[in-house]
């Protein structure tokens, strides 16, 4: 078995998550080879063949050109699996490869058991086992689900070329917004999720944060709704935090939110649903209505 792993780099640096692909390759009991759109300054620690697309020439993101070069490698190496991270890059590129090769794709895989893929669905409330009916498969793995492996060594570089035309132009990264609130160093964070119900109710969060001397964070739907400013969003597309205490109020525990909080010291979750996936990571899950529980907690902190 052979696996073509699709690594990632961002602004010239190899993303560490690339090593999780080697973890998946091991679970597939297969021999890894690597494709990377990157630069010689950010090479992985790995001694096998590295098909390197020069990011200066072909960009870190260019679906048509990268697709063309990955298909060249597939043709040459004939891998059984092409494995991506289930990241913005992988989600974009993987279906293009699967469609071009007319082979099955399994997305956001969390485990692999004897060639059967385990995937989450319904916001992590259910899992599915999926088999691929084609001889080869495209796989995207959930970030964090596979233990990283650093093979070590220096790669044997095969420089990739393409003169394919591109239907999409990458015009660079958008500069970050004006003032960013850095929650990375906060010791206490109280976060609001959709379960807080209304913008007015976020006052309960601000109050508790003020009394505890903590910062306010939020899940994505809360910032999308304009209840709390964007720069306080926590998760894979927001900030990564590591407070000593994290209090999640009315947050279900989607993987993209958990990605931002897993380095927290102690996690308290308040949720009216006993089965909410946040229970998987919380040290204490309080089964209660946030709008009733938060005033009670705030009162106890003020008047012990």
């Amino acid at each position, binding site marked *: 078995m052979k696996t073509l792993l699709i690594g990632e780099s961002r602004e010239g640096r190899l993303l560490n998550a690339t090593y999780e692909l080697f973890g998946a390759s091991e679970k597939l009991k297969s021999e890894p080879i690597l494709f990377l759109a990157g630069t010689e300054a950010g090479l992985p620690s790995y001694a096998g063949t590295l098909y390197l697309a020069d990011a200066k020439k072909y960009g870190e*993101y260019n679906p048509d050109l990268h697709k063309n070069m990955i298909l060249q490698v597939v043709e040459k190496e004939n891998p059984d699996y092409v494995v991506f991270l289930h990241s913005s890059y992988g989600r974009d590129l993987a279906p293009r490869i699967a*469609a071009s090769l007319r082979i099955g794709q*399994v997305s956001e895989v969390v485990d692999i058991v004897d060639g059967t893929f385990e995937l989450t669905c319904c916001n992590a409330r*259910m899992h*599915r086992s999926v088999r691929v009916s084609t001889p080869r498969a495209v796989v995207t793995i959930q970030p964090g689900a596979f233990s990283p492996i650093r093979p070590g060594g220096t790669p044997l570089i095969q420089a990739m070329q393409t003169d394919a035309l591109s239907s999409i132009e990458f015009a*660079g990264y958008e500069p970050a917004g004006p003032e960013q609130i850095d929650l990375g160093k906060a010791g206490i964070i109280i976060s609001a999720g959709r379960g807080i119900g209304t913008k007015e109710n976020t006052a309960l969060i601000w109050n508790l944060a003020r009394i505890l001397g903590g910062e306010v964070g939020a899940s994505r739907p809360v910032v999308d709704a304009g209840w709390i400013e964007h720069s306080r969003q926590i998760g894979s597309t*927001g900030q990564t935090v590591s407070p000593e205490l994290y209090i999640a109020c009315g947050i279900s525990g989607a993987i993209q939110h958990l990605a931002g909080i897993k380095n927290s010291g102690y996690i308290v979750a308040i949720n009216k649903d006993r089965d909410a996936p946040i229970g998987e990571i919380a040290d204490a899950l*309080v*089964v209660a209505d946030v709008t009733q529980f938060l005033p009670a907690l705030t009162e106890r902190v003020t008047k012990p």
Partner: protein
Amino acid sequence: MKLLVCIKQIPDMESQFKPDESGSWFEESGLVYRMNEYDDYAVEQAVLLKEQLGGEPDLTVLSIGPDRVVEIIKKALAIGCDRGVHIHDPAVAHKDPWQIASLIANFAKEQHYDLIFTGMQSQDRGSAQVGVMAAEQLGYASATTLVGFTYHEGLITGLCELEGGLKGIVKLRTPALVTCQSGLNTPRYPALPNILKAKKKEIRTIPASDLSRAAALTATTRIFKPEKKGSGIILEGDTSTLADRVINLIRENTTLLR
């Protein structure tokens, strides 16, 4: 100009899911259904574009599924789509993304849409495949996970969301397909007069088997509740006792509140 927006009906994610008789999908009876969250943004963006162009584009909304999906088609018509297409398929839950993409692509091929909007993923299956696969089958340019969208004379400028707050700027020309991420816009609620007007709009029904008989490339063999691995404690009871217990836990497990 012709626009298409693809929407999926999904159950409320807070539902109690259990496997159905086949063991490969969840039991659908008794669930409350609504429009996939990401598709709300797709519909809104399509309607915004139609408005930007003075109402000129013809905007079709398409959904594949059993009879009940007509509800979300009607919602999209009330928001501002011109016509509905219901690709009737009671077994859609057992089709894989490739097959669903084939239905969309085969329908769209004859209609020559300039621009197609989809959600970035469906909340129940979450494969994030259907939009891009449909674009590839049609030979359309595509951009994914948009949190920004502008259109000017056939040129789309999109903001693709990457990780950690970073965004990439992309430019592509029609014909194209874009997948929409939450936060792209603020979806409106249908106004009552528009709900009434929408009742007169056409909804065409096409049996799925008329459009595609593509074979599945993947198959779900089992759906199940994941084993609980969390080692945390669960606290239940009356609010004031709960507050006391939480304060004690914070004292015992952190350096705070001492």
